[in-house]
């Protein structure tokens, strides 16, 4: 940008004004505002030349007037640029007024703020209402004639045109040029004044004036003498002048100036649309400059810097502006990238606070994209596609500062307004409904109570006192359409219940439309507080069923479920048969429905309850509605395919909001919708909780009237009521590695970060270890080329060594020392610290930790090695590692590659070789699996024929066996009846138990014998003999017999496997 301008102005600088003077003067002039002007200077540092030229150019040119259009245009633009950058925070009027007063003679410092123009137009056109339109039109016309500039320019143009046509033309040209050059700041500045004008900031004006008063004389004098000078001076001077003018205007035009303002303010509402359009367009222009999709990062940041506002005054989040209430109403925002001062959360809540809407992905409906550094490419693409307005954080602040309450009369705001009205109407409607309902009830009750006065049903009247009820029951829905959300689910439930009798007649064979006809029971599941129980009760009531309910407050063990419910299941309701004197007996009312609430609450105390419930659900004679929160729990498995599943989902915010507004209305509470929204979001659409919260708020208000619930309090409240959700490992790692977590703007404390670890302390660090190399570390972003590469390695190394440190801590925790108090330390070393190096955008989805899988694979393979080593032990002397590292490569050669090379011919040799080392067919497979690198399993290509013949031949032959598996040998140990086996014998200390166990052992033996039969036939018999022999001895002295027994066992062993080599083993299947 600067380069462009410079080149553009190249001619001018030659023209002459002294560069050096301008700069110092600017500095001098601006002491009061030193900061702001400072920035400007800084900004322009690179553009010093430009600045100078700008300042000087206007001077010289102004008198000469329009002819050299280009040059003139430039000056205006630059000044514009400055003004905008400098004045961001400032009220725009100064610039504008400038024009008013001076326009004719003045160099027409470009930036005629819309406000000024407006004012002027107003002055001219007595019809306030029409004035804007007129201006606009005029501007439009002019635009057409000239260059078709943007609206803003047009307005300016129009206004200026009135004053001094030639001049304006120039201006206009200049402006447009600038704009073309894509001077962001300029546009921003323009947008700002416009919006401000909108809101009719009388106050601001006044303030400014006050401030400037002291300057007045000087500035006035200056202006009088030479405008050129003025220009040269920094904007501050300009401003002063402007202000002066304003005051003048005010003083002079007195009533006039005020009037228009007032009128505009009033106008805002009626005028709305057209002006809104203008308004909308104004921010639009200002916003768009940063976006270009290719490399948006650099530009916005530069822009912010140039704007000069952000850095100096920033000092953290201190300068978050305070805007008019609801000023962002109806606007949709998307946040992307890392913002400079705000955390994303903060930004979003800021937007929400002022009534704006935040979505996560940009779309055509998005009004603004708030862009930070490092925005995701996908988002940038959409932005480019939809040509969305992108603004920086600063821009957002500006919006908030400028926009009037309720979004003024912008289009979006209007829509919002309309919607709001609609909502309100709906709310009132609903409230009326409830009123009616209540009245009806009261009526009924009165009647009842009248009739029952004699019978003294006093408790009834007590119950009727609606105000005593909890709000949750007071405002419980009384008809299906009052249920928030889940319409489909409720309908399903309702139709199932309606058709239940019919299905029962068909013996639950006909599936029906939605397939519910084959189920005797339904299972409603969903998170708490979304109306499952309510819906079930309501549907039952509406379908004319009487409800029998059982919930977690009842014990529901298997026995109780079976016996207790039996009485219910086969009966009909008698409620219809009895009634108070004046009520008719309703014999149709005999249907029962059983609602089992909180089924997943069946706990340890309810042993077998779930199973029994499932059994009942299969054959119940009355409809059965089961309700639970977590359907996926393993203990809910018995209900699979037994029940008709109706999942309830959380209602959307909109669905809940209407209902809540109704309640607020009825309770005469005033709570702004966005506060309600935040409450709903905070509770994850738990309607019950929100209602309870409202109830609590109400109580507070009763005690301390006047304390309205505002946005912040609402946030606080929902935070306090927050249900803690345990994050899944994927989310944990995604969060800790996200660039937001560690950015400077992040508000997450060290504690918050380590808290993430504790969401799942077994997985979080493993997940981190798996994924920390898959990020694009934000810390290396400032480096280029080779340095970047090295920085990456440095970060990776730091992270890896920190993880290594963490493992040592882990050993202390899980090792023999069990020092669990070290867990926070472990969290730091293995989780937070590595993330602090490697945080950045994830390049891919976080992967699940591979450590677990690898570890169990290692376990499996090392069992193979152990087995192979065990078999080879008679021949080879090496330990496991020697076998794996030295023998297996050669064995692989001799066994696997031999078969690959020689095919069937090698089979005999291979089998011989295997026999010589006592290896089995399974060991051969294990060997294949144990191969690595060049011997990898995937590289083993064996002809199927070879393999088949290998297997066949191997099975045909008998093979030597080095030893019997312990499981086989177990039988002889068991045989001695008194001593089931060695382990037991060792454990048992008292003899009585042994005797008592005898019978049991017998049973066990039988089972085991069946299993062992094949291999053990002979040894078992002998063992049995021995066992009996032993039993006599053991009866005498148990202590000794233990040992003796073991010895015997060893002897047994000797008998059995000794002849192993000679003995052929049965071919294994």
């Amino acid at each position, binding site marked *: 940008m600067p380069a462009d301008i410079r080149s553009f102005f190249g001619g001018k600088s030659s023209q002459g004004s002294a560069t050096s003077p301008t700069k110092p003067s600017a500095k001098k002039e601006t002491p009061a505002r030193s900061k702001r002007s400072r920035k400007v200077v800084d900004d322009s540092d690179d553009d010093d030349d430009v600045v100078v030229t700008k300042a000087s150019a206007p001077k010289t040119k102004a008198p000469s007037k329009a002819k050299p259009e280009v040059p003139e245009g430039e000056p205006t633009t630059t000044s514009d640029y400055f003004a905008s950058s400098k004045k961001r925070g400032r009220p725009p009027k100064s610039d504008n007024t400038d024009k008013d007063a001076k326009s004719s003679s003045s160099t027409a410092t470009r930036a005629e703020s819309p406000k000024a123009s407006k004012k002027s137009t107003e002055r001219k056109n007595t019809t306030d209402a029409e004035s804007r339109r007129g201006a606009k039109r005029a501007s439009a016309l002019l635009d057409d004639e000239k260059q078709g500039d943007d609206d803003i320019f047009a307005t300016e143009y129009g206004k200026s045109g009135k004053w001094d046509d030639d001049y304006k033309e120039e201006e206009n040209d200049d402006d447009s040029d600038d704009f073309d050059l894509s001077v962001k700041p300029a546009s921003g500045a323009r947008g700002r004044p416009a919006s401000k004008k909108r809101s009719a900031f009388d106050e601001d004006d006044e303030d400014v004036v006050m401030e400037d008063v002291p300057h007045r004389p000087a500035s006035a004098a200056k202006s009088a003498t030479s405008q050129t000078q003025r220009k040269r001076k920094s904007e501050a001077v300009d401003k002063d002048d402007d202000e002066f003018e304003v005051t003048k205007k005010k003083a002079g035009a007195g009533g006039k100036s005020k009037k228009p303002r007032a009128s505009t303010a009033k106008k805002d509402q009626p005028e709305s649309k057209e002006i809104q359009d203008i308004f909308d367009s104004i921010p639009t222009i200002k916003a768009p400059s940063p976006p270009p999709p290719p490399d948006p990062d650099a530009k916005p940041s530069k822009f912010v810097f140039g704007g000069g506002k952000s850095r100096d005054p920033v000092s953290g989040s201190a300068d978050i502006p305070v805007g008019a209430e609801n000023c962002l109403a109806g606007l949709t925002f998307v946040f992307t990238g890392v913002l400079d001062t705000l955390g994303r959360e903060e930004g979003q809540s800021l937007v929400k606070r002022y009534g704006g809407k935040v979505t996560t992905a940009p779309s055509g409906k998005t009004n603004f994209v708030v862009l930070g550094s490092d925005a995701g490419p996908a988002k940038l693409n959409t932005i480019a596609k939809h040509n969305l307005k992108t603004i920086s954080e600063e821009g957002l602040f500006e919006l908030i500062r400028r926009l009037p309450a309720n979004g003024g009369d912008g289009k979006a705001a209007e829509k919002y307004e309309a919607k709001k009205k609609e909502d309100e109407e709906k709310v009132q409607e609903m409230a009326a409904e409830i009123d009616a309902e209540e009245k009806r009830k009261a009526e009924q009750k009165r009647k009842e109570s009248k009739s029952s006065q004699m019978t003294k049903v006093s408790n009834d009247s007590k119950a009727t006192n609606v105000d005593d009820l909890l709000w949750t029951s007071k405002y419980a829905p009384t008809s299906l359409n009052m249920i928030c959300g889940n319409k489909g689910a409720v309908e399903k439930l309702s139709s199932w219940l309606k058709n239940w009798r019919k299905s029962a007649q068909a013996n639950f064979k006909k599936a029906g439309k939605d397939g519910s006809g084959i189920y005797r029971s339904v299972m409603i599941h969903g998170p708490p507080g979304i109306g499952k129980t309510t819906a079930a009760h309501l549907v039952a009531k509406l379908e004319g069923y009487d409800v029998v309910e059982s919930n977690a407050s009842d014990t529901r063990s298997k026995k109780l479920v079976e016996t207790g419910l039996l009485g219910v299941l086969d009966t009909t309701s008698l409620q219809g048969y009895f009634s108070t004197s004046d009520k008719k007996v309703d014999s149709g009312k005999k249907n029962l429905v059983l609602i089992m609430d909180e089924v997943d609450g069946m706990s340890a105390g309810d042993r077998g309850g779930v199973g029994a419930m499932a059994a009942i659900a299969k054959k119940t004679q009355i409809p059965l509605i089961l309700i639970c929160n977590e359907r996926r729990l393993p203990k809910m498995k018995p209900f699979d395919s037994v029940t008709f599943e109706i999942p309830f989902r959380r209602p959307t915010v909109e669905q809940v909001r209407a209902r809540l507004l109704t309640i607020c209305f009825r309770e005469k509470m005033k709570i702004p919708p966005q506060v309600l929204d935040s409450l709903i979001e905070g509770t994850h659409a738990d309607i019950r909780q929100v209602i309870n919260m409202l109830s609590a708020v109400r109580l507070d208000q009763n005690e301390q009237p006047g304390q309205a619930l505002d946005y912040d309090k609402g946030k606080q409240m929902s935070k306090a009521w927050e249900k803690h959700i345990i994050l899944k490992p994927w989310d944990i790692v995604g969060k800790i590695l996200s660039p937001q977590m560690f950015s400077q703007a992040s508000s997450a404390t060290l504690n918050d970060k380590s808290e993430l670890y504790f969401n799942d302390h077994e997985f979080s660090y493993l997940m981190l270890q798996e994924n920390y190399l898959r990020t694009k570390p934000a810390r290396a972003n400032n480096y280029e080329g080779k340095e970047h590469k090295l920085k990456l390695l440095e970060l990776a190394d730091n992270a890896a060594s920190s993880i290594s440190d963490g*493992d040592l801590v882990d050993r202390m925790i899980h090792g023999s020392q069990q020092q669990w108090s070290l867990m926070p330390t472990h969290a730091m070393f293995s989780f937070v610290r590595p993330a602090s190096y490697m945080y950045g955008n994830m390049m891919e989805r976080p992967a699940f930790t591979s450590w677990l899988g690898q570890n169990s694979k290692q376990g499996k393979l090392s069992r193979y090695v152990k087995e192979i080593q065990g078999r080879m032990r008679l021949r080879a002397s090496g330990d496991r*590692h020697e076998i794996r590292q030295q023998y297996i490569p050669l064995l692989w050669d001799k066994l696997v590659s031999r078969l690959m090379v020689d095919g069937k011919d090698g089979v005999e040799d291979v089998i011989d070789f295997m026999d010589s080392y006592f290896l089995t067919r399974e060991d051969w497979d294990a060997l294949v699996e144990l191969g690595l690198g060049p011997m990898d399993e995937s590289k083993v290509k064996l002809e199927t024929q070879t393999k088949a013949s290998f297997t066949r031949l191997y099975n045909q032959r008998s093979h030597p066996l080095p030893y019997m598996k312990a499981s086989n040998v177990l039988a002889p140990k068991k045989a001695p009846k008194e001593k089931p086996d060695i382990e037991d014998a060792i454990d048992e200390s008292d003899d009585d138990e042994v005797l008592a166990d005898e019978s049991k052992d017998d049973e066990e033996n039988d089972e085991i014998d069946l299993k062992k039969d094949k291999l053990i036939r002979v040894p078992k018999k002998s063992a049995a003999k021995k066992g009996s022999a032993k039993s006599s001895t053991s009866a005498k002295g148990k202590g000794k017999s233990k040992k003796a027994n073991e010895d015997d066992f060893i002897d047994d062993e000797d008998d059995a496997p000794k002849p192993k080599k000679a003995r052929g083993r049965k071919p294994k299947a």
Partner: protein
Amino acid sequence: MALLVDRHRPRSLDTLSYHHDLSARLRSLAQSHDFPHLLMYGPSGAGKKTRTIATLKELYGPGVEKIKIDNRVFQTTSNRKLEFNIVSSVYHLEITPSDVGTYDRVVVQELLKEIAQTQQVDLSAKQRFKVVVINEADHLTRDAQAALRRTMEKYSPNLRLILLANSTSNIIAPIRSRTLLVRVAAPSEEEICTILGASAKRENWSVAPGLNKRIAKESGRNLRRALLMFEAIYAQSEKVSDSTPIPPPDWEALISVVAKEILEERSPARLLQVRARLYDLLTHCIPATTILKTLTFKLIVNVDDTLKPEVIKWSAFYEHRITQGSKVIFHLEAFVAKFMRIYESYLMGMDF
């Protein structure tokens, strides 16, 4: 049909082909009536086990060669069942307690007591005591070693222990003081050459002295390894000459690949690839320390001399951590990351 290394294994002290003075001492010990507990230590492939068996034969006669394997099940206090293999003859028992990991104490306590409390059954036996050979004694946990010490004294009439270890550093002092330390040094390269030559002659294979020398060097004076390599070469190539290449074992080949990858490119993405390979090695039962050591030596050949001390330092650092920590992959990865960083900054000539 067995492998060369097992077929040509010497069976008596007389036929052992090197360390003759050691053989003589063992023989005289065996012939004395006062056979002590032994702690044989030396690198793997030096012939500890062979020498032990030969000594046992000297003690008991050929009976010790009739061995069998028992498979026993032990139960820990936490009711976990441990399968355990025991190799035994009538006169001796050979166990590897480290097979059951941290539960080795249970095995040592139960088994040794059981054996020690019974006398030699065979009355014709030359000795009254049985011998228990404990393999991988340096992998015994502290607890298990502590359990050993009293047993060694209390049951000495019935029991002699021969501990086999790679080094004495992991063996607690009380045990060392109760045993006679016997160092079995690795055979020199010449000795290995001679043995290889003799084996070749027995098999009627053509002898290539140059090749033997290379094998001896390559094997790191591990005789078992040398013999296996020797056989592998003869199995793979018909004609063997002095220049026949020696095929590396599979895992070593893979580690060379890893080293090459590391040297080729240094970046987090490459580190991820290397991690996958390291996992591969670990799952296939290659000990982490072996991996680290091999990798270090493969890397070191290719880096500048000035870097070597640094690399070795970190290698040692992380090897120590491998034994201290529990998840070895973390430390291996940290080493690789460290190496990449050092190497990269060296190549770029800057310090970070």
